[in-house]
């Protein structure tokens, strides 16, 4: 049940009305748990039981860790929790991929191998709730937080339907205290939630879903298109990815606000980043934070010298790429991002010795150049991420730089240019709160019509068949 569909609208409306009609906090928690579990069963009943089962295992193990006094026992329980969580993640998401890769590897050295095909159904959201569960058990192990005693509270932390299938990846220490607090209706919060939902719908329906028609045919067969078309498709995909994922995040955060919960923001205008380091701090921020805290920093972070830092960046980003899916495209994409980050550190060190260059790069025109270059670099590397195979990605990357002729976009490009211009304007407007203050000073009736027109626009341009969110597949 996708967020932008009529059935989900009625589902959420029902939950919302019942939730605020109940005066009892405990009942509200269990209502959300039940609704979230029901929401997941609509994807797949059996996999919903897997999620529930793994959540209960983590709940019990955390209680056990807190009760245990011997460090060895605590470590054992943590290890068991990590084994269960990562084991499920590896089995459902990567087992077939590893088996196929092993088979191809053996064949390439002349050995015949016929390994079983598992055909495993991927549980929706497994990459997200697994990381949340790991965050919880590690934090309990490290003593950063107490184990949650109330099973309903813990289940809500894992299953809360706004963030269940595609994040944001929520921290237990940020979410669980909210569950314990009694909720009161708050008009400011409702206003914020409604605005975020409207923004999410606009990003998903007006921006992301309309880019599909420009993008899909080009990435499916890049050899047939000209260099300029490939670049336009890459930009279109960058807009689609941003609109889709940040739109989803806005919907999730907005719905959470309407239910009295605050989820951490997940995007901060990443396409205004002046370098790739900044970019990954603004894109999918909840995952970036998690990867930093539980992979990068334990590896040594940036404290252990240049070479080690570069190694840590490469490893971290490669794992981050692998997180996206069971495909060598994602692994390579991650590795390339790691190399770029390592390269950027070197560049920063070089600039540090050249004050004039640093001065120009940090000036307004220099910042514009850096932002444009960062965006172009990200779009270029998206060929690896998006193309169905590595060989097609190679073709696309080569043709993007070769200045070759070929086919044009499948739709008239005016729609894409208009969308690009609108995204640039909205990004620049959001960069300062200047336009926000102007908007707030308008009469309420004018603001109301503006909101009404925006929602109408989202409904009108929505494609006939609702497209799944891209990050649902991760």
């Amino acid at each position, binding site marked *: 049940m996708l967020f932008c569909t009529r059935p989900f609208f009625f589902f959420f409306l029902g939950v919302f009305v019942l939730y605020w009609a109940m005066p009892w906090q405990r009942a509200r928690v269990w209502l959300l748990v039940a609704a979230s579990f029901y929401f997941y069963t609509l994807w797949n009943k059996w996999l919903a039981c897997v999620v529930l089962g793994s959540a209960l295992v983590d709940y019990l193990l955390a209680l056990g860790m807190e009760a245990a006094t011997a460090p060895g026992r605590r470590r054992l329980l943590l290890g068991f929790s990590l084994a269960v969580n990562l084991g499920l993640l590896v089995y459902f998401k990567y087992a077939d991929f590893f088996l196929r890769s092993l088979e191809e590897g053996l064949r390439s050295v002349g050995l015949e191998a016929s390994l079983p095909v598992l055909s495993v159904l991927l549980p929706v959201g497994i990459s997200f709730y697994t990381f949340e569960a790991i965050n919880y058990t590690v934090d309990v192990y490290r003593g950063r937080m107490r184990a949650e005693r109330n099973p309903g509270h813990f289940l809500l932390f894992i299953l809360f339907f706004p963030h269940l299938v595609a994040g944001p990846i929520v921290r237990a220490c940020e979410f669980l205290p909210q569950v314990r607090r009694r909720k009161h209706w708050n008009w400011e919060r409702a206003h914020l939630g409604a605005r975020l939902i409207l923004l999410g719908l606009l990003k998903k329906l007006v921006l992301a879903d309309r880019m599909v028609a420009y993008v899909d045919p080009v990435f499916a067969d890049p050899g047939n298109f000209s260099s300029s078309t490939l670049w336009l498709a890459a930009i279109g995909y960058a807009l689609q990815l941003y609109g889709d994922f940040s739109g989803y995040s806005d919907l999730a955060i907005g719905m959470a606000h309407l239910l009295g919960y605050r989820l951490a923001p997940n995007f901060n205008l990443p396409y205004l980043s002046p370098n790739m380091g900044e970019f990954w701090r603004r894109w999918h921020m909840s995952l970036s934070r998690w990867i930093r805290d539980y992979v990068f920093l334990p590896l040594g972070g940036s404290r252990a010298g240049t070479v080690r830092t570069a190694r840590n960046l490469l490893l971290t980003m490669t794992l981050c790429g692998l997180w996206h899916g069971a495909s060598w495209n994602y692994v390579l994409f991650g590795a390339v991002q790691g190399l770029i980050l390592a390269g950027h550190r070197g560049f920063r060190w070089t600039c540090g010795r050249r004050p004039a260059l640093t001065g120009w790069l940090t000036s307004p025109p220099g910042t514009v150049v850096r932002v444009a270059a960062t965006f172009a670099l990200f779009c270029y590397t998206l060929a690896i991420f998006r193309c169905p195979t590595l060989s097609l990605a190679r073709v696309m990357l080569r043709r993007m730089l070769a200045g070759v002729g070929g086919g044009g976009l499948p739709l008239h*490009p005016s*729609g894409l240019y208009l969308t690009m211009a609108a995204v640039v304007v909205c990004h620049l407007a959001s960069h300062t709160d200047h336009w926000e203050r102007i908007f707030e000073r308008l009469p309420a009736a004018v603001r109301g019509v503006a909101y009404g027109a925006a*929602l109408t626009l989202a409904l009108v341009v929505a494609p006939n068949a609702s497209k799944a969110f891209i990050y649902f597949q991760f």
Partner: protein
Amino acid sequence: MPPTRRRRTHQRRADLLWAAAGFALVQVALAIALEKRLPVRDPDFAIKLDRLQARVQESPNRPLAVVLGSSRTQMGLDAGWLNQGTGRPWLTFNLGFEGCGPMMSRISLRRLSAAGIRPDLVVIEVVPAQLLVGNGCPIEERGLKGTRFRADEVSVLYPYSSQPWRLVTDWFRGRALPAIQHRADLVTWLSLDRTPQGNPIESGKWYVDPSGWKPGPAVYSLERAVDATHRTLNEFRAYFRDGRIAARQLALLRDLLTDCRRRQIPAALLLMPESTAFRNLYPDGLDHDLGVLLDGLRQEFGLLALIDARGWIGDNDFFDANHLTQVGARAFTDRFGREALRPLLNQSTADSQVVGLQ
């Protein structure tokens, strides 16, 4: 609660209420636009009306023949071909639409009148299956969407509908939430689905030629044709199973002809070509009953002709037993112009007696 906080709370509450009101207001504005603007409400018809007005403006002195009908007419009559060259006095226009029958034809006549167009001849296609009631619902009604009509048009169709509340509910849904119900129409109107070749009205799915012809496929595979034929025959078989002409459908046709007579527009009835496989669906006796019925109408209403073209075209020139290919359309148009339309010109302008063509 501190005063600033209270003020902000009130402001946010007011914002939310105004947002709901603003959304409702925008829907009302769209609903009014839909009632008034045909291109948004019924782009199919608006495009053809636009083309027709342009053709009439180009040739204001030529007698105008409008052919009303279903997708068979829409794809089968290359009216532009009839309008070319000397010795072709009629200005013929193809006002056929997918799924159109006597209900839509009545609305088409009203809309032509509202646009100031009075044809000198109306040729009305009769689809035999549309006079029957198979599957519990007349075939025309299955595809008839209330959202295409204005409120007064719905009131015209209401007495004829076998499910009048469905028509009204459709219309109401279209006006209550136009952003959803008319989404595809609004997107086309806003040109949001333009291809590199241009607006889909000019070159894509909405395309019709300047005389209203929507050509069928120029090239198609045998496999596709077999599959399409199979589906068509299956669909129509249910309607022919009963084989009885329904009283309501007959009343519709009669009222349509009464409308033509009231507007003093000479009319003729047309049975479009059908393949052998399609004609084999007819149950025993239907052909005879149909012939008696239509001839009776011809005499009662003083129709200029009853044109039975069902056997005019060979089976190879259909791509689904029901619709003509481009080659088939040209062959039909040639014969239609020569054997049906030209004699009707002499009849209508000389106000002579009715001649039936069988």
